């Protein structure tokens, strides 16, 4: 399990992780003082969706549904703080997580390759392995959520709305690109920008 986590962590900054990192970063930033809960909801939906897809029980979702998930998330994270902010951000996290689970093409190294090879027969153990690997891959986002929680509230209050609009904008652009059938090009461009 440590090897699996380490492999996930090592791929956190690889091009293959950008498809996951961009919406993940957007929901985390836009989650503001609920960044942890927003990212938690995002990861839960991402892991569950990816597990079902990688095990072969579901296929890639239609572009319309994937794009709608991202647009829903965009709409919810741009709302200002209020009584139901936590619930709204959690729903946004789930929407973005489900959509990202359909877009993600992971790096398949030694450890994760072994997990994927046996995922259709591994049952709950496979889900646990998916959690361990994905936590490794998203460790920078988890650290960011932790840092935003630790940040002084005056600081987060000042830039919070801007972060909400920024994150929402990124999610909306990605959602529109998916609906327009441009997701392949967007992913390709992200790969090219991050290849070194």
């Amino acid at each position: 399990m440590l090897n699996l986590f380490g492999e996930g962590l090592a791929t956190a900054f690889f091009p293959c992780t950008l498809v996951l990192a961009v919406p993940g970063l957007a929901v985390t930033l836009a989650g503001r003082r609920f960044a942890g809960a927003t990212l938690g909801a995002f990861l839960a939906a991402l892991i569950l969706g990816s597990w079902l897809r990688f095990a072969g029980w579901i296929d890639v979702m239609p572009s319309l549904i994937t794009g709608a998930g991202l647009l829903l998330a965009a709409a919810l994270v741009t709302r200002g703080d209020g009584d139901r902010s936590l619930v709204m951000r959690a729903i946004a996290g789930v929407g973005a997580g489900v959509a990202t689970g359909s877009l993600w093409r992971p790096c398949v190294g030694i450890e994760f390759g072994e997990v994927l090879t046996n995922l259709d027969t591994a049952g709950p153990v496979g889900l646990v392995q998916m959690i361990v690997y994905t936590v490794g891959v998203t460790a920078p986002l988890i650290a960011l959520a932790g840092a935003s929680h630790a940040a002084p509230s005056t600081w987060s209050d000042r830039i919070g709305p801007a972060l909400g609009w920024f994150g929402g904008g990124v999610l909306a652009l990605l959602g529109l690109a998916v609906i327009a059938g441009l997701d392949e090009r967007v992913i390709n461009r992200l790969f090219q920008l991050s290849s070194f």
Partner: protein
Amino acid sequence: MSRSRFAAVSVAVFFGGAVTLFQLRDTDSTATVEVAGTSADENAAQDEPVSAPTTTAPLETAPENLGPVPELVQLDGWLQTDGDSFDTVKGEVTIVQFWTYGCYNCTNTLPHLQEIYANHKDDGLEIIGVHSPEFEREEDPVGIQEAADRLGVSWPIALDTQKKNFRSWQGARRFWPRTFIIDQNGDIRFDKIGEGKYQEIEATVAYLLENGA
């Protein structure tokens, strides 16, 4: 210690520990492949960079039969072979790998396949690399040929530009790379997603070449 400092230190310790563990992972590998004539240490070393060619002993027992191999259909051409269909390797032990040259994990497998090919080509092993591009920029046959030359891919390459075989062979579980071993009867005897298990691949090949299907 303030809350923010505690968080920063925790994150630093977390990352430092994780990276250290990852760096050390080769020394405490938990590979559990049951391969005849190999020790745990040899198994642990299976994923290290290829150096001098070595030959792995065959498996002790027959590898599981995973069913008949699908045909390679509606290909967009071949590179590095005079053959124009899968029929040319029927009856031979064949490694079929779905790959694309822009895929980091795919290129990591190639030195290991080269070693296995060098060890068993004269015994009758064939390899077919089914090139299924992930992105548009990987579709050009000229680029594929240049990449094959650069990466040392010397075996036939089937061009699966439309990814029809990538989908039909892998169903809903589609990944790069994916490696199959086909026996002399046209049945799949090994199936692996991603990198690794090179020693098991070679042991399976050796078993099939020595004992037949």
